[in-house]
C-alpha cells in the first residue's frame, strides 16, 4: 500500500471519528471539537495530495492548508462565543435544551 493511500485512509478515519463525535454527543463544545477534527482531516488530505501529487513544484497544498487553518480558527472563535452566549441564556450547553430561537 502506497503512503498516499495510507495517508488518505488516516484522514478519512479521522474524519469519521469527528463525524461520530459531532453526531453522538449532546455537549455543544464536543460537537464543535468534532467539527474541528473533521477540518483537520481535510487538511491532512490536502497535504497528502501535495506531497504525492503529480505537480512537483507548486506549493499550493501548503498555502491552501494555511488558509484552511485560518478559517478554522475563526470558526472556533465564533462557535465558542456562541456556546457562551447560549449558556448565558439557557444555563446549559446541552444541545437538546437549546431549542428556542429567542432566549
Amino acid at each position: 500500500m502506497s503512503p498516499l493511500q495510507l495517508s488518505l485512509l488516516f484522514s478519512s478515519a479521522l474524519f469519521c471519528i469527528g463525524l461520530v463525535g459531532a453526531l453522538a454527543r449532546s455537549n455543544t463544545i464536543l460537537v464543535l471539537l468534532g467539527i474541528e477534527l473533521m477540518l483537520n482531516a481535510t487538511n491532512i488530505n490536502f497535504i497528502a495530495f501535495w506531497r504525492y501529487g503529480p505537480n512537483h513544484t507548486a506549493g499550493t497544498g501548503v498555502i491552501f492548508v494555511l488558509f484552511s487553518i485560518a478559517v478554522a480558527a475563526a470558526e472556533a472563535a465564533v462557535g465558542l462565543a456562541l456556546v457562551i452566549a447560549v449558556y448565558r441564556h439557557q444555563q446549559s450547553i446541552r444541545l437538546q435544551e437549546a431549542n428556542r430561537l429567542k432566549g
Partner: protein
Amino acid sequence: MIVALITIALFTLASAALAMSLRNLIHSALLLVASWAGVAMFYLWAGAEFLAFAQGLIYIGAISMVVLFAVLLTRRSVAELAPAPDGKWRSVTAIYTGCAVAAVFFGAILFTPLNFSAGPARSFTVRELGQQLMGPQAAAVLVVGVILTVALLGGVVLAAVGRRTEKEDAS
C-alpha cells in the same frame, strides 16, 4: 517511513477516538490536544514544516486554550464536568452513520488507482512560501485577514451581549 506514518496515524486516531468517547470534558479537550499534535507530526513527516509550526501555534496553543476557557466558563459545579450520558439510540445511529461514511471512503480510496509517483522529498522553504503569499496570493491573504478580524470581533460581541443586558435588567 511507512512505519513512522502508521505510528503517527495510530497515535492521532487513538487519542481522537478516546477524546470523543470520554465523558469528562477536560480529559476530552486534553486528548484532542494530543491528537492535534499528532496531525502536526504528520505535517512534519510530509515535509511541510511551516504548517507543523502553524498547527502547533494555532491548535495546540490557541484553540485549546479557548476551548478550556469555554469549558470552565460553562459549568456550575465539578459534577457537571461529567454530565449524564447521552441517549443510547443517538450514539448507535451516529456510529452507524460514521461506519457507513467510513466504508464509502475506504472503498473509494482502496479501489481507485492512485498511480502518482512518490517523487523526491518536497522542499518548499519558508522563503518560497512567503514569496507566494505576498505575490500571487496577496489578495487571498488580505481576505483571510478581514475574515479573521470580523469573526473575532463578532465573537467578542456575541459573548459580551449577555452581560450588558444583565446590567440593563439590574438598573
